[in-house]
């Protein structure tokens, strides 16, 4: 399978009027309602439908959301439950505690709308041109160059570490090809103190925050420098200093955890937000439902960021859900939601920035569904040619890639050219190769670290087990790779 690089010109794509994100057929629109800053508005389905020209819009939320729901732009303290109207048995309104709605006298099932679903917010077109200048965040040159360099450095690291697994140097790897925009756009919109819960395909967030190449490599090689002490498979990164909670393999478990962390942070009153990343596949897990419901009900300052990349290993989205993706679930929980073009780093940035501002000000969660495409295989244990066509993958790699779209934006402003590209390509590769070579030479952690940190203190029974292991090793040492491990 060819390695996917960012250095492909994307001039030839004709602008299509329909977006082709796998699984979600929707019409590309920019939402131009303004409130603050970048004029990004999170729609309740009701207000979006009011603006929509689609006569057949009848998403689930329309009828249910006719309840009087106040949405003040200012801070909202613990608000009273919506259904506490005074009990009035004479009124011809429903009095049920469970919902605030009107009566209706004709039978009609609400049609879930998946043909023209929630629209995809974008700032740039596929050629990197700004569509609506008032949506351009107008970030300074240094910041945009940094976005580009972080995305491309990640891409370079991915290519080298993927290869290193193929060569048997590391045991496993997962690339981030195609999703770099979701990482960098969202990470850039956060504060360094904001707490990040990830799934496993968010290395760009950590890279953006400054996690050094040496520590990425150390975790993948499980060497003495690994902050995780060599206990987990590659790509299970974590950093206390950078507020990035260590990745775990079970999917979606981080979602209710993020809600709890956000609740704690709300009580601390420190103007921090929690962001929780997950894929569209993980969103099917029960933990996702639990996390969304808790965050909304308990009023947690939290951004749920779903990377909808079209596949959960081999399972395409039409085998993952029947509704309108993940964004459409948000209103069901009472959550403000938006769908964005995940390959448009400015759209991701704008949406995350506004979500952050409001989540903290109003103590409520926001759901961002970033549509994107997983260009690479699921992992080094996967060969995706078994379930999708090379043509499909090539489209995304060549015609709609976050890195090339941003490069077009930069070159149009004269901020980047062939020379800078050549120089940076060389430098980034050198940085990665040097870190790689250093990491290869390092030893593995001391085998005592097999036994520590199970509890804060080591129980006597575990001490005994450790001693028995060393006694065994003394007698049978030639059968164990002790030379590679720290003494």
């Amino acid at each position, binding site marked *: 399978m060819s390695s996917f690089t960012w250095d492909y010109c994307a001039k030839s794509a004709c602008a299509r009027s329909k977006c082709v994100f796998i699984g979600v057929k929707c019409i590309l629109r920019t939402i131009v309602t303004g409130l603050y800053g970048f004029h990004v508005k999170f729609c309740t389905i009701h207000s979006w439908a009011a603006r929509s020209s689609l006569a057949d819009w009848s998403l689930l939320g329309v009828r249910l959301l006719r309840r009087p729901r106040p949405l003040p732009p200012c801070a909202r303290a*613990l608000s009273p439950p919506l259904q506490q109207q005074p009990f009035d048995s004479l009124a011809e309104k429903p009095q049920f505690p469970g919902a605030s709605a009107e009566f209706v006298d004709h039978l009609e099932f609400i049609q879930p709308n998946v043909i023209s679903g929630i629209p995809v917010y974008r700032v740039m077109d596929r050629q990197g041109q700004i569509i609506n200048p008032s949506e351009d965040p107008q970030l300074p040159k240094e910041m945009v160059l940094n976005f580009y360099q972080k995305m491309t450095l990640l891409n370079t690291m991915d290519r080298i570490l993927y290869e290193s697994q193929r060569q048997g140097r590391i045991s496993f790897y997962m690339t981030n090809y195609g999703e770099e925009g979701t990482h960098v756009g969202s990470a850039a919109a956060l504060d360094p103190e904001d*707490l990040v*819960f990830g799934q496993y395909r968010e290395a760009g967030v950590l890279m953006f925050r400054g996690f050094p190449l040496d520590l990425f490599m150390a975790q993948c090689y499980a060497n003495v420098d*690994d*902050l*995780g*002490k*060599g*206990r*987990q498979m590659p790509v*299970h990164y*974590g*950093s*206390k200093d950078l507020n990035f*909670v*260590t990745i*775990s393999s*079970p999917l979606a*478990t981080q*979602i*209710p*955890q*993020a*809600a*709890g*962390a*956000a*609740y*704690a*942070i709300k*009580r601390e009153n420190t103007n921090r937000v*929690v962001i929780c990343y997950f894929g569209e596949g993980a969103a099917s897990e*029960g*933990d996702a*439902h*639990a*996390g969304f*419901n*808790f965050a909304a*009900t*308990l009023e947690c300052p939290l951004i749920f960021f779903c990377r909808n990349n079209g596949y959960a290993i081999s399972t395409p989205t039409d085998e993952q859900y029947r509704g309108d993706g993940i964004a459409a679930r948000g209103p069901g929980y009472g959550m403000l939601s938006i769908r964005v073009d995940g390959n448009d780093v400015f759209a991701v940035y704008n949406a995350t920035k506004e979500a952050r501002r409001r989540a903290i000000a109003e103590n409520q969660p926001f759901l961002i569904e970033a549509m994107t495409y997983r260009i690479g295989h699921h992992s080094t244990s996967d060969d995706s040619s078994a379930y999708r066509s090379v043509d499909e993958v090539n489209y995304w790699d060549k015609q709609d890639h976050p890195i090339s779209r941003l490069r077009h934006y930069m070159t149009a402003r004269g901020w980047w050219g062939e020379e800078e590209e050549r120089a940076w390509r060389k430098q980034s590769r050198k940085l990665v190769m040097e870190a790689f070579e250093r990491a290869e030479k390092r030893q593995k952690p001391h085998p005592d670290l097999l036994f*520590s*940190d*199970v*509890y*804060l203190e080591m*129980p*006597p*029974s*575990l001490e005994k087990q450790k001693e028995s292991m060393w006694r065994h090793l003394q007698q049978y040492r030639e059968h164990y790779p002790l030379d590679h491990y720290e003494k």
Partner: protein
Amino acid sequence: MAAAVRLLLRAGSACNASSVCAPHTSTQRRHAAHFTFQPEPVPSQYGPTQKMNLFQSVTSALDNTLASDPTAVIFGEDVAFGGVFRCTVGLRDKYGKDRVFNTPLCEQGIVGFGIGLAVAGATAIAEIQFADYIFPAFDQIVNEAAKYRYRSGNLFDCGNLTIRAPWGCVGHGALYHSQSPEAFFAHCPGIKIVIPRSPVQAKGLLLSCIIDKNPCIFFEPKILYRAAVEQVPMESYQIPLSQAEVLQEGSDITLLAWGTQVHVMREVAAMAQEKLGVSCEVIDLRTIQPWDIETVCKSVVKTGRLLVSHEAPVTGGFAAEISSTVQEECFLNLEAPITRVCGYDTPFPHIFEPFYIPDKWKCFDAVKRMINY
């Protein structure tokens, strides 16, 4: 749910174990509890005491915690109004609705949320309404909470998390209000499991769990919530974890149990002394994981016989682990095979509970067989 609560509240008012209520009509009265709770001497080292039953001693521990730790929060189903077993009565009014609050009905959410609170530095006290309902949270407990510190290289941990759940038989709880699931969790390194036998023990052990920097599961014997009444210190105090307690010294056989079953074993010890002249050493394990191997083995070395008893089904129950370890450590000291008197390998039955539970007669009979081995 409300009906279940009413039934359970009636359980505490049954007559004591040594008499059977005389039926007034031809229909059979429900049986009294299978043991009698004996309050222990008033502890003097922890300051002034007050008469409390077990649920009140839990409330007291939680009250002390909320007063001294501003980050502490209590949450779960129905905790706001006081809880289905009244363990959180008065706390929301006293400490505020941001600190004592209901969650949606979702155990995986409750534990996941609790883990997140703990990771962010708050003291999280999660209530699972019945231990029987803890299983949706099994993944969060076993794959996440237990492994948080280890897998992150000690960068992150959820040591500030304590999960509380009512546990054990109650006379009529049947399959889903009687379970003792400690064995499922004992198999998982990284969490602590603690089960008290009395109000004084409950408060001290719960406070130790809350303070302990590891995620803890605290199982509260629901049959003791109202039935167990003692003088309990009002101030905060801690009883150490991973320390078993020898309640009664003896020379012929060691009787080991935890929670409600400790009271059954005490009665068995009295019966054995009276009817067989056998001197029993009674031990309350208190912490199931990590358990106090040293105290138990020291006792077995002395007595040569070990009887372990729990309500949970015998196969794969925690008595199996104890049995295996003790025979490894004390093989040559054993005068008889280690015996387990436990629930049968069935779900916990309703009308058959009197036949199912490891009552004092079954334990007494086991003692007799072991002495005569």
